[in-house]
Structures are given as structure tokens and as C-alpha cells.
């Protein structure tokens, strides 16, 4: 098949590959080259940090000012789920195409997600100490989320136990695809059906919306979710570029 001319017999799939090869600004690789979203991340997160502490929040009985943690604890977890979802998509893409870049993308996204989960636990513990009395109480959601992150720790152990690159990438991709589905069952489905939980929205409790009585927390909350997701993407793109350089050096 000639690269220059358009092959009449090309199927739709190979035409798409052709389009991607000619236009590298699409997809993750394209995203890594641009910088507008990184500037946007800095602006959003600065806004969240400053207005999150200085801006007004509705007055709540037990929470008082700790409700501001909503701008940090929950966006970290939402960002984590977004990063894991993108990693899942790239694992599927890796299995279909076999390109090693996709494997690098999915594994670095999981690395960043693991760090986010540790931060999520720390912010949750700080919040819990003021509102529930203990940093880590006996709450089903906390326990299920801990087990869910154990899945991704197991992913890291799995990756480290392989010597062969291609095998490692393929088996890790299979595990990631399988694990993400069960991860979602653990953190979304199970906490909603338990009888008792301290977390809002789970175990029969109403969601956090009732605490946001003036709807002004949304102004900082939604940008925070976007900001943390973009920050996670930024960190993982840097790590992906480091791995790509290492790979190119080792292939020389």
C-alpha cells in the first residue's frame, strides 16, 4: 500500500490509522504537545486554593469550616476515577493495537492514581478527625475504597514480576480491564447497598447536596474536579515522556 496515494481498497479501519499517522496532534500524543491546558490547570487550581479558603460557604452545624475540604478530598477521588477510566481505555487500545505507547500511558496513569488515592485518604482522615472524631473510623466506604486501591497495588506487583516487556504489557492490560470493572462495583455499587455508613450518599444517607444549601460550593467544586484531573494528566504525561526517552535510549 503506497503511503502517498489514497488506496481505493483500504478499509475504513486502515483509513483511520492513516489519518492518525498523518496527523499526530490527535489523541494523547497531541495532548502532550500542547500547553494551553497546563496553563488552564494552574489557573483553575490557584482559583480553587484561594477562593476555596477565602470564599463563603453555607453554615452547617457539625461541619463548620471543614466543609471546605469538599474542594480537596472529593475532587481528588473524582480525578482518580477519571484517570483510571482513561487508563482503562488505553489498556483496551493497547490490546487491540499492540503499540507500546498505549501501555506506557495506562501504566503511568495508574501510578498517578495510586498517589492520588494516598492523598485522598490523608485528606479524608483530616476531615474525619474533625467531624467524626476519629481519622479512620469503622466505615464501609473507607474499607471498600481501601480494598479497591489494593487492586491497583496488586496491578503494580503484577507489573514488577515480569521480565519480558511485551508479556508484561499484555498481561497488565488484561488485568487492568478486568480490575476496573470490579473496582467500580466496589466503590460505587457496594457502598450504596450497605445498611450503615458515615459517608454522605452511602448507606442510606442523603448526598452532599443537602449541605450545599446556597449552591455556592458548586462554583469551586466543579472547577476543582477538572483542575485535579488535568493535574493528574499533566504529571502522568511528564512521566510518560520520561519513559519514552528511556525506551528510545535503551533501543539505541
Amino acid at each position, binding site marked *: 500500500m503506497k503511503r502517498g496515494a489514497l488506496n481505493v481498497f483500504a478499509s475504513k479501519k486502515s483509513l483511520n490509522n492513516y489519518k492518525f499517522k498523518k496527523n499526530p496532534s490527535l489523541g494523547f500524543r497531541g495532548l502532550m504537545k500542547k500547553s494551553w491546558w497546563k496553563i488552564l490547570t494552574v489557573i483553575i487550581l490557584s482559583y480553587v486554593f484561594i477562593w476555596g479558603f477565602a470564599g463563603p460557604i453555607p453554615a452547617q452545624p457539625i461541619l463548620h469550616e471543614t466543609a471546605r475540604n469538599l474542594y480537596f478530598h472529593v475532587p481528588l477521588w473524582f480525578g482518580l476515577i477519571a484517570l483510571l477510566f482513561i487508563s482503562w481505555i488505553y489498556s483496551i487500545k493497547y490490546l487491540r493495537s499492540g503499540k507500546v505507547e498505549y501501555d506506557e500511558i495506562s501504566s503511568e496513569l495508574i501510578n498517578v492514581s495510586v498517589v492520588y488515592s494516598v492523598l485522598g485518604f490523608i485528606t479524608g482522615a483530616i476531615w474525619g478527625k474533625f467531624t467524626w472524631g476519629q481519622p479512620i473510623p469503622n466505615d464501609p466506604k473507607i474499607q471498600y475504597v481501601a480494598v*479497591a486501591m489494593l487492586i491497583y497495588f496488586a496491578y503494580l506487583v503484577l507489573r514488577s*514480576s*515480569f521480565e519480558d516487556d511485551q508479556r508484561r504489557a499484555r498481561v497488565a492490560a488484561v488485568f487492568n480491564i*478486568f480490575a476496573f470493572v*470490579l473496582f467500580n462495583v466496589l466503590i460505587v455499587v457496594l457502598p450504596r447497598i450497605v445498611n450503615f455508613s458515615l459517608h454522605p450518599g452511602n448507606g442510606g444517607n442523603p448526598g452532599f447536596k443537602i449541605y450545599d444549601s446556597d449552591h455556592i460550593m458548586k462554583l469551586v467544586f466543579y472547577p476543582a474536579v477538572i483542575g485535579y484531573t488535568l493535574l493528574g494528566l499533566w504529571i502522568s504525561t511528564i512521566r510518560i515522556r520520561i519513559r519514552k526517552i528511556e525506551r528510545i535510549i535503551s533501543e539505541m
Partner: protein
Amino acid sequence: MQEIKALIEKEIRLEWRQRYALNGMLLYIVSTVYVCYLGFNVRVGGIDPITWNTLFWIILLFTAVSAISKSFTQERTGRLLYYYTLASPQGIILSKIIYNSCLIFLLSSVGFLVYSLVMGNPVDNTLMYWLSIFLGSIGFSSTLTLVAGIASKAENNATLMAVMSFPLILPILLIVISLAKNALDGVAWSVVQDKILLLIGIDIIVIALSYILFPFLWRS
């Protein structure tokens, strides 16, 4: 379908020829139950139902993990290559899941009978309890078979199997334990319908995922 039936027959025949593996698993479950009996020093009244139930399911979990971890490593590498040329990967994974489900159900039934013999039987709704054992066997088997397949491709088989299987099996384990507890208490069927549907849903999702993903594993 024919292929799957033939593969299941192959698994059964292999297992029957080397009966020591099957006997080993039976002995494992009976001796674990007996150790619990001795450890808890059960008096006439029997132990607290929650403890009874949870302990039973923990024993079943470990039996299932140790039984299924052998399922991919039992055959020699030459023979695995032979299967690769003969049978489709989908057939292999489905046959292994079905075979492992039957195996775990058999082991669980034996375990349940011995357990109720030595530790007392506080179960109110026995049919629901058998249903929970049945659905639990399918759930454990489908998850653990794929995990065993993943672990068999790696170097450090046993540790990897243990590390990977515990977090992935937990959703199924938790739902099954709560369903079994409801059976113990004699709760009405209408109340547990959601849990049963959720269990069946998770089982179907896991089996479908195994069906789709196993061919990629099989290639290497």
C-alpha cells in the same frame, strides 16, 4: 458447544486420573473445619450466627483460591501448546470456568455438610443458603479462573495469585456473606431479591469479561 463439552470431559478425566489433587482439596476443607471446631471449643449451644457464617465463607474462600490456583499450572508446557493448536481460547476459558464452578460447588457442599455437623446448624432458610453457596461458587470460580490465568503467565505464581485474588474477590464475597446471613436469619425472599440479582449480574459481567479477555492472554 461440542468443544466445551469435550474440554470439560478432559478436565474431569484428568482430575480423576490424578485423584490425589481432589482428595487433597477435600482433606483441606475437612481439616480446616475441624481446626475451627477445635479452636472454638464449641459447646452445646453453638457459636454466634455471624461468626458461624463468616468463618464458613472464609474457609470456602481459601479452599477456592487453593483449588483454582492449580487449574492452569497442572499441565506440562508441551501439552498447553498442543491445546493451543486444537481448541479455541474461548472454549478453554468457558470449560475451565464451568469445571471450576462444579468443583467449588462440590467442595462447598461437602464443607457445608461437615461444618453443620461439627459446628451446629443455625440456618433458618436452607434453600436460600444453598442458593448462596451455588451463586458464590460460580462467582468465585469465574473471578479466580481468570486471575489464575493471569498469574500463570507470570513468574511468581503463588504469591501473585494470592495478592491479586483477594481484592478482586471481595465484592462477590461481601454480597454472598450478606445473602447467606439473610438466609441464616430467615428473611423473606422479596427482601433479598436485589442481592441475588446483583450477584447474578456480577457473575455474568465477570464471565463475559473472561470470555473476551482470555484470548489475549492465551496468545503469549
